[in-house]
């Protein structure tokens, strides 16, 4: 890559206390806890607040729709908005995001329409948006795999001389995967313009963080790979935004990758099919509800005079509009073409696939005239017949 051997970063150990700019009571933090970072401007904070409110309303709405059976599944990020929005808001137009299944609200923040975000979760197609339009890769399900794609894309951009930064979101569980470590190492060796944001929400489904890593913090991993690492209060959106923005700027300036751990908590279950009472106490959840990232920023913004009642109402109304639009979109049944199954497997057409496509087309054509109730009666009687 670079013929010049890059100067190795002086390994600065991440702080043991998470970096914080606004405390849990909504008061600005002074001194060492800030680790030299400064509070973003009131305008930036208001923007972050608005995005978090929208994200929360969207998340609550989609969780409700999932319970009603409108979606096959939905991994909620409720409680993680500080991490999600703070991180993704640091990106510029041409930067790329490599998200996971957890990060639908990050996509929302980048402007992907709800109906496109939810295409995969309602079971239409594996994804529903154009990666090039939004500069977002498909939400990855195989854990940590997307981190390598981020490193590759960022390296590709660097080779082409483009000032593009790739940010990838990872879970705490995902940091145990080999791909996470390969991504950290490749990024550092190649000095790729990448920012790794680990959302440590305490659990990988049911497995607590204590069974995932024996490191002091996940940010500590950065030291071994020769890159800067930051341990941040993930429920302080101001801190997440400030630290991630600095990392993005550093990457853009040729300073290589950064690993950021945001300490946060998943308030909802892992997905709608999970029962969290089997592995965590209501008391624990209640404690984390007290650390809500939105309430915290709201307190700060109201106290500083930046958030008026009128503005609060306006943002709440916009969030309601988003929820209504999301409901409408999910209440409209998608029109699917089964023959599209064959359309995007290869760039070059294959005769064998064409045959299978024609087979399905014939099957569909033959099924069409038969009234639905007749065929279902038949299948029921066949089933009972075979049982008898």
């Amino acid at each position: 890559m670079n013929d010049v051997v890059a100067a190795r970063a002086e390994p600065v150990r991440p702080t043991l206390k998470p970096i914080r700019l606004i405390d849990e009571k909504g008061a600005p933090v002074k001194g060492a806890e800030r680790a030299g970072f400064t509070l973003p401007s009131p305008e930036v904070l208001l923007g972050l607040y608005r995005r978090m409110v929208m994200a929360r309303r969207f998340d609550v709405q989609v969780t409700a729709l999932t319970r009603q059976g409108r979606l096959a599944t939905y991994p909620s990020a409720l409680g993680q908005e500080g991490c999600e929005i703070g991180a993704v808001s640091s990106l510029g137009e041409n930067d790329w995001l490599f998200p996971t299944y957890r990060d639908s609200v990050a996509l929302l923040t980048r402007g992907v329409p709800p109906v496109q975000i939810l295409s995969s979760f309602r079971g239409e197609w594996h994804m529903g948006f154009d990666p090039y339009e939004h500069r977002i890769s498909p939400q990855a399900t195989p854990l940590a795999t997307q981190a390598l794609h981020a490193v590759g894309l960022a390296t590709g951009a660097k080779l082409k001389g483009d000032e593009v930064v790739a940010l990838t979101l990872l879970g705490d569980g995902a940091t145990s995967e080999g791909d996470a470590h390969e991504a950290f190492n490749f990024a550092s060796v190649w000095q790729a313009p990448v920012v790794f944001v680990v959302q440590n929400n305490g659990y990988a489904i049911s497995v607590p963080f204590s069974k995932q890593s024996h490191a002091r913090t996940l940010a500590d991993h950065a030291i071994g790979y020769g890159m800067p690492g930051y341990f941040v209060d993930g429920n302080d959106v101001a801190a997440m935004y400030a630290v991630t923005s600095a990392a993005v700027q550093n990457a853009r300036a040729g300073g290589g990758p950064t690993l950021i751990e945001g300490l946060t908590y998943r308030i909802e279950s892992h997905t709608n099919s999970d029962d969290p009472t089997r592995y965590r106490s209501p008391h624990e959840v209640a404690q984390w509800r007290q650390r809500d990232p939105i309430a915290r920023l709201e307190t700060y913004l109201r106290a500083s005079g930046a958030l008026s009642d009128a503005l609060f109402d306006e943002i709440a109304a916009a969030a309601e509009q988003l929820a209504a639009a999301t409901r409408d979109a999910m209440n409209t049944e998608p029109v699917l073409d089964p023959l599209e199954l064959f359309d995007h497997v290869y760039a070059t057409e294959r005769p064998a696939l064409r045959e299978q496509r024609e087979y399905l087309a014939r099957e569909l054509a033959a099924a069409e005239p038969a009234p639905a109730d007749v065929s279902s009666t038949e299948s029921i009687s066949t089933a009972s017949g075979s049982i008898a």
Partner: protein
Amino acid sequence: MTIVDRTALGSPAGPTPAGSADSGSADSGSADASGAPHPAAPAPALISLSIAGALNAALRDALADDPSVVVFGEDVGPLGGVFRVTDALHATFGESRVWDSPLAESGIVGTAIGMAMYGLRPVIEMQFDAFSYPAFEQITSHLAKMRNRTKGRVSLPVVIRIPYAGGIGGVEHHSDSSEAYWTHTPGLTVVTPSNPADAYSMLREAIASDDPVIFLEPKSRYWAKDTLVLPVRTAPMARAQVLREGADVTLIAYGPTVKTALEAAALAELEGLSVEVVDLRSLSPFDDETVGASVQKTGRAAVIHEAAQFGGYGAEVAARVTERQFFHLQAPILRIAGFDVPFPSPKQEEHYLPTAERVLAALDTWEW
């Protein structure tokens, strides 16, 4: 594209290499094939080249022709790869086009995917067959599926070169034939050349393809030489080739077993059996047309591969040819394959590998 390329590509005087199609179909799959002969260029040189040398030439020409082609992997830089397939490429094209990556196969494939998303055409190497397994998830879950997942919006023009199969006295993990893992994965194109001309032509075509290609290089054949003119273009890689015509039996082979099949055909001829040999070249897609036509003619077929028989690629060949050609078949399709055991140690591999004698013995099991 260089002048030398144009000259040789347009040259009707170039020899037809073993296993190549007639010149009519030879150029149809090639983006470079439209060039007319350059009047001032010197006559194309006939050279003797090994498969490794032909692959090296293909990489060199692809790097020269297309600035989006990059080559990386383990030891592919200054060393030139453990089989020297990337020899001198680092020195010629520099660190930003050809480089040694950290040693992690999943990382190599995963980062190649990201680069391809950004418009590059990575040609990456898995040092040996069995060492591609750490990358299995990236290959099957992402490389193969990205086009489908994104409804065709994201193409991943990545070529994964994998030296494969036995016959070189390799210790454990250095002789696997893993083709069935890849051919079973929709979204992948899987090809394997058996001669230097195909090695060059198919690698160029693979690099130009917008689909990800698993490019299996038969390592026991790396040093097999042929005379040819570069840059040679043989038949499109999706097409199988009849290497030897015969009337009684069709031997279906690929990669390292093409040589075995040709040897068996020569021996069989002494016994009065006329054997046709088909070199599949592409394992996915499978060329039903060429294989079908051959089987219709001969009425009998056997497929030869080094991989273990059970669940192997030969099972697919036997099944689909039977489904399509049942009424032309006079006997069940045979599989002459490796035993269903892990690939043995060097001193034992001769007992494992399918040989021409084993092929003949198999043909003898039919009632003629």
